[in-house]
């Protein structure tokens, strides 16, 4: 299938091929370049890095004060308070003001897949009730791997937000293809790709102007594909065992892409944009019995018990509803007063009551937003482990949103676990990343100050041992803080 059409590269990437080559040349310097800034004209003299005198958080809840972490060729070789620093190490001295955390893992996003530009009118088809698969947004055989582009702006932005790894889903509609695990650094797709889970990505996104165009059509189409694939899989097995007397089983890559899902060897990663989509995903899963991972879940506080009971692995969206415009103009303590003034006995009988009504409605709205902000805390309190997914979120909003969630009851440890250990475990990466331990990949986040404080600045991110320093202006996690420390 013409993948160019399905995953058009950003034209910027296409037009700046020269720059790409330059970048590639820098990256492909001898491996000594690891852990040092990629300056092309200075020879690299060390392949090992040590960060010393730092507050190291190997995993949520654990702290090594004034510790040292050493890594060589992208692998952590030592962590602890008393660690010998190799003679050939490039040493970064934390001066007891740096903290080191495991690199964050984005449980689902489109990072590295540039948004297609100039999406014109979709191509017309002779029979819109029965369009070709690709036109209907059904390309489950495709893979994010072929569309990965390290030059996508989001890669750098996410790195600066502390993310070193992501499960990257292809863009598209109902079944855009398989997601892939990727490091958020590299000169080309192959350097980014991590072997591991490649779930089939599915969303309730109807096609434009052709069948299936609505969420219910998408539901039906998914059932159709799944059940027909199940039939074909059985036919295929029968045929390969003994073809005699049997017609050749029908073949197409779309149905074939379902075979490993049906066999239980591939899970389905479903993006649930709202509470109703959570129910839809669970309905399909219960009917068809595939292995499912659920992402997004905005507004999912009302489905908490269903999700908990199902045991489905979940990653919550890092997005939060915008603050209502009126609230942005109100002073903090006045907001609290509005909240406290809520009165469910209030009635709007006549024109005399409309002022009071307005205040009361504002109070309800604040409360409603707090439910969204507090959702992660509620999941945590209910004992549902979760990761975080950045899909649809601007990287620069992530830390502010996390701080809001923490303000609404999510513990810092739980937030960190969602970003690291939980995500690693959900994506089958626990043996490689999510914590700072000897033998693990050198994916690290280095901050000035405690991770979720408003004034904290992410100063460096290490991806597979490669260092990325935050640009002076954008490193601060509190995106609009004016002063520098």
């Amino acid at each position, binding site marked *: 299938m013409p993948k160019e059409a399905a995953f058009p590269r950003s034209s910027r990437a296409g037009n700046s091929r020269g720059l790409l080559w330059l970048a590639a040349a820098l990256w492909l310097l001898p491996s000594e370049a690891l852990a040092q800034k990629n300056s092309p004209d200075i020879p690299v003299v060390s392949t090992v890095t040590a960060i010393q005198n730092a507050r190291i958080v190997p995993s949520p809840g654990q702290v090594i004060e004034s510790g040292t972490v050493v890594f060589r060729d992208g692998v952590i070789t030592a962590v602890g308070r008393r660690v010998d620093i190799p003679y050939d190490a490039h040493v970064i001295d934390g001066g007891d003001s740096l903290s080191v955390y495991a690199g964050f893992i984005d449980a689902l996003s489109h990072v590295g897949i540039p948004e297609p530009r100039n999406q014109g009118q979709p191509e017309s088809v002779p029979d819109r009730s029965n369009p070709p698969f690709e036109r209907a947004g059904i390309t489950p055989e495709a893979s994010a791997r072929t569309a990965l582009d390290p030059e996508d702006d989001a890669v750098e932005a996410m790195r600066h937000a502390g993310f070193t790894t992501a499960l990257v889903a292809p863009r598209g509609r109902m079944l855009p293809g398989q997601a892939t695990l990727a490091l958020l650094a590299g000169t080309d797709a192959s350097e980014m790709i991590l072997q591991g889970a490649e779930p089939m990505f599915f969303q309730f996104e109807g096609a434009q102007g052709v069948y*299936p165009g609505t969420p219910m059509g998408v539901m039906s189409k998914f059932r159709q594909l799944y059940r027909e694939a199940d039939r074909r899989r059985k036919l295929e097995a029968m045929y390969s065992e003994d073809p005699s007397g049997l017609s050749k089983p029908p073949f197409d890559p779309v149905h074939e892409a379902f075979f490993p899902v049906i066999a239980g060897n591939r899970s389905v990663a479903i993006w649930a944009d709202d509470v109703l989509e959570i129910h839809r995903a669970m309905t399909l899963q219960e009917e068809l019995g595939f292995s499912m991972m659920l992402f997004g879940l905005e507004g999912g506080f009302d489905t908490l018990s269903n999700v908990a009971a199902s045991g489905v692995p979940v990653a919550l969206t890092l997005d939060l509803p915008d603050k209502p415009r009126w609230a942005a103009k109100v002073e903090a303590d006045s907001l609290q007063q509005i909240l406290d003034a809520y009165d469910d006995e209030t009635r709007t009988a006549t024109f005399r009551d409309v002022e009071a009504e307005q205040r009361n409605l504002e109070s309800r709205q604040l409360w409603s937003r707090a439910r969204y902000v507090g959702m992660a805390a509620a999941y945590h309190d209910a004992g549902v482990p979760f990761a975080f997914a950045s899909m649809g979120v601007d990287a620069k909003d992530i830390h502010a949103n996390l701080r809001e969630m923490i303000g609404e009851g999510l513990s810092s440890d739980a937030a960190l676990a969602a970003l690291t250990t939980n995500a690693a475990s959900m994506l089958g990466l626990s043996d490689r990343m999510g914590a700072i331990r000897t033998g693990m990949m050198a994916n690290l986040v280095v901050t000035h100050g405690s991770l979720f404080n408003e004034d904290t600045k992410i100063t460096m991110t290490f991806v597979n041992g490669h260092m990325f320093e935050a640009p002076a202006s954008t490193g601060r996690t509190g995106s609009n803080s004016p002063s520098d420390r």
Partner: protein
Amino acid sequence: MRNSIMKYTFSTTLLALLVVVSLGQAAFAQDVLIRNATVLTVTNGTLEDTDVLITDGVIADIGTDLRAPRGVDVIDATGKFVMPGIIDAHAHIALSSINEGSSPVTAEVSMEDVVNPYHLGIYRASAGGVTVSHTMHGSANVIGGQNETIKHRWGATDPDAIRFEGAPRTIKFALGENPTRVHGRRASGGSGAIVPATRMGVEQVLRSAFENGKRYMEAWDAYNAEAATNPRAVPPVWNERLEVMADILRGEILVHCHSYRADEIVMLTRVLKDYGVDKITFQHANEAFKVAPELAAYGAHASVFADWWSYKFEVYYSTAYNAAILTRNGVITSVNSDSGELNRHLYHEAAKSQRYGGLTDDEALALITINPAIQLGIQDRVGSIEIGKDGDVAIFEGHPLSVYTIPVLTYVDGVKVFDRENDPDDVRVDVDPTAEVGMYEGQITGKDHIHSHEEVVDMLHFFQSVADTHIH
């Protein structure tokens, strides 16, 4: 960040208060004793000064001076009227999507997949005594999707919790202008027109869907028979759409067909007869009155508007006396809303049959209770006040067929879902955290025919694939 509300904590009491507001009625099946009411049973006449006892969500007793079981909620309904919860046989509430308008046959899609329990239309209908809605696929396709029968359990947040458990499956068909315009006359998405563009084409789309369904059913029957002895039997190609057509042929799905003109009504009856399908309710059916004897002979039902007409050509030769003519000719007839406005006063819509045709009180009430229950196959559960039926009742101040009546209390399974005196003004279960507070949203009025509205929104959805989250 500075004004973030994350810094605020919610007092436990306030939180509890708000939870009560939004989820107060989430628990279902309760007990209530309604005392000294005028009970309009619909199937058994009017009982004066009568008590109705609902326990465990079911009508347990009807009589005078009933003993109140311990802990039961007692309502003094002296001077008030109690009628069965109203049933709206044609609604589009509580759905997050309505029309999969991309194909003339979409039997496989189901409103079951897009039920939205947060939709305010549920409460607003309950405030008019409606306890059950048949919430339907749109009318763009000759064979549209399957519908869902819901109970108005306002406050529930799980779509499954508002389904009318055990209600038979139903499916939407549509004849006439809508499918011919959407598919045959509109070049859409850059692609051309497809059959049907005429009422002739509509018939052939129907016949071909039924024939394919029949052959599909036979192919599977043959396979299943063969598979018993031959492990190498090859199953037929799986087809979700034809699975549903086969279920219609097996009599497992009731057909509810959007239709207007007499000729097309007779045409569908003919097609159904050829395929042995006998459970059919003609929806809207503005010209059903012209073929009332044919409908009666076939045993077909009709679910009509009280007075809508003239909004399109195929309803120009209508009469508001439709329900009366059909009733007098022995056709089981209901009056429906098909509107987020009319569904709030179906008692009034039914009452119009007294001006337009002089139906008796019981006949008029049957149009919105037992008759739609029959059409939806739920008459054993709801539609009248009888011992053993569900505790779905509505209490009115003044006779419900009077224009001066006021619905005051509505119960679903014995649970109060509407209380005029005590409900807060703002009953939303979900409050948009970003929207402007107190935003002017316009109105749905009695002249907003859902057809134009649904066509606008769903066709936009269809062409641009926008999510139609808040249709009504």
